[in-house]
């Protein structure tokens, strides 16, 4: 009579231990990787925060410097300062009899001071149909992808030194 013999197999204990160790190390590597990424992002965020504060301070400093320089310039070109300088250079105030008038076509001595363009009424053309009714699903999908990718690239630009 023929006997059916079943061979029982079992992993060697050292192999099992090795697998456990491997799994543990894999978990450790994953956790370390996540922690590393987290730390990296955190440090970048903190650096960006400090950088924002630094840039705000720089802006304040520059604005103050501009204000100080503007005041200095205004003081140096004030009426009295200019008159004193002109007199020191030998100029004298002209009287009515010394004035010679020439007609210069196109010259307007009383032209209005322009610091900025005049305010204009901008007519905004509002579309009759909303965007949602005019876009195909594919267009919308591509647009979302485009928006997300541009958002990422802009973030990168802002963070990079």
């Amino acid at each position: 009579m023929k006997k059916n013999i079943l061979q029982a197999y079992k992993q060697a204990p050292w192999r099992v231990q090795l697998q456990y160790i491997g799994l543990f190390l894999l978990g450790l590597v994953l956790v370390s990787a996540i922690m590393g990424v987290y730390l990296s992002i955190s440090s970048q965020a903190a650096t960006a925060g400090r950088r924002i504060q630094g840039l705000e301070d720089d802006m304040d400093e520059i604005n103050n410097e501009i204000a100080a320089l503007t005041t200095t310039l205004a003081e140096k070109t004030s009426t009295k300062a200019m008159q004193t300088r002109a007199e020191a250079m030998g100029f004298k105030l002209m009287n009515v009899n010394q004035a010679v008038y020439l007609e210069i076509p196109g010259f307007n001595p009383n032209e209005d001071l322009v610091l900025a363009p005049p305010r204009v009424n901008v007519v905004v053309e509002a579309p009759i149909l909303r965007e949602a009714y005019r876009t195909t699903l594919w267009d919308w999908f591509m647009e979302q992808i485009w928006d997300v990718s541009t958002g990422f690239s802009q973030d990168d630009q802002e963070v990079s030194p």
Partner: protein
Amino acid sequence: MNPPFYRRYVIITIICAILATAVVIQMVRINYTTYANDLIAVSANYQGIQTIIYPARGTIYDRSGHILATNKIGYEVGIDLKLVSDPESIASAAADLSETLDYATVFEIANKEKLETGENRYFVLTSYVSEEKIIALMELNETYKARRLETNSGTPNLNGLVWYPMQQRAYPEGSLASNVLGFYNYFSRESAQGVHGVEEAYNHLLTGLPQKVFLPNDPYLVEALPNADPGANLILTIDREIQMMLEETLSGAIEWSGAENGTIIVADPETGEILGMASTPSFDPNHYENYLITFPGNTPYNRAIGTTYEPGSVFKVITMAAALDTGVVDPTTVYNDASGVFWVDGLPIYNWDGGAWGEQTMLGCMQHSLNVCLAHVAVDELGQDLFYQYLQAFGFGRSTGIDLSGEANFPLRLPSDNQWVKLDLATNSFGQGIAVTPIQMVTAISAIANEGKMMTPHVVKSVQEGDDQIQFTPQVISSPVSAETAQTLTEMLTISLEEEASTALVPGYRVAGKTGTGEIPTEFGYTTNQTNASFVGWGPSDDPKFIVYVWLEKPTISQWGSEVAAPVFHDVVEQLVVLMRIPPDNVRLGSNQ
């Protein structure tokens, strides 16, 4: 059977569990303890600072773009309590930074952390400290540092006394146009605001919108600060060259005439733009702490708009304009001043010299400034209804609406008022018994120089806000007389000056004008030897580009406007035509033809 080291594992596990439980219990306990709120409040102080961002105040330019008011660097000085270790030295150093600070106050603040835990850790001591004072503080800090090294001790030191730059108002032209500009009262940053003049009238535009922000210490929470848009910039109608000329001329005129005070206004009658406005007293707004010294009591900041007075004969221009416009007289109408007196309700009106001038045309009446003639025109020709209708049409009795703060107005006494008597009609006709401001006179008489159209006087030409510039359009208040009347009266007053050989005349230029000598009312009646001398004139007569009003208060050299104010008008116009680039009539009319 338990594996080896089983008990050790169990013990370690139990210890860890106990520790974790203790931590959790402590966390819960801290949150529910009675000190929790205090701890949270204290921690809030370390999370950051709540502060207000003040946008830069707008710049004020003259009409050519020269800066009249701008900002420079000042400093905010405060105490950072967590760094303070020597409150005595801080109190001693900071006590002199501002008039509001003293040793005791600063010491109390600097010592606060030791006294009261939980206090805010940053205190603002004072704002707008000058750069010089900050440099002195820095030098003191260095001296203390050297002394500490020498003595090898921790005191004296200024640790915790901090300063931050900020913007502070500056007036690069000093006192020039200060009566028009007003000043910025930055005594306290929170309550700082414009006072008087343009600074007050346009405070809302110049200030911008302060923003309250939280500045966190945690870098993860830091965000870009919101944009605090700076205040709007103002471009004035004032020309700084003209303004300086007016102020110098006025100063010279007051010195020469012995007048107590004075005012000169130059305006463009076509647009109502004020080209220059000088008034006394004036001061340097960079040192506005001297305000009460320069303007004690009820002294008006700008007499040109803030003081009413009886103008005298310059007012005859208004009476004659009304009479010509209604057609009751024309320039050739003759009035016979036989007695030199005009009776109203049994009361006499006399001429300025008390004499009788015989037959006079209306031109002669204006030329010789005859009170009797003008009283006759108002009482007998115009009548009370028409006369006061015209006065109201010329804007008397109400503000002109000039865009400066502090405009005064004296109500016009009308026939419908109980206090009005018929004598008022007669005296009002030559500028007595009626109170006006110089700017009211300029506005009203501008109508004669501008074909009958009266323009709103204004000092702001345009406003620049953000990327836009908004131009102010000249506005017509009313048209009290016709263009024909205005031209006729201008010609009459031009001829009257020429025939009189007035000291107001400027060679090469035809100008129209009228003198005024107003008696000053007191509680005992009108004064006899103290007067208000004035002159109003405009030119060139054929196409007026300027109107000049001169008022000298109580001159001592002479009481007559023709002798005191007319020469000042001459001096002003002689320089004004050069500054405004107005050629003499022969050149101008020759080139136009």
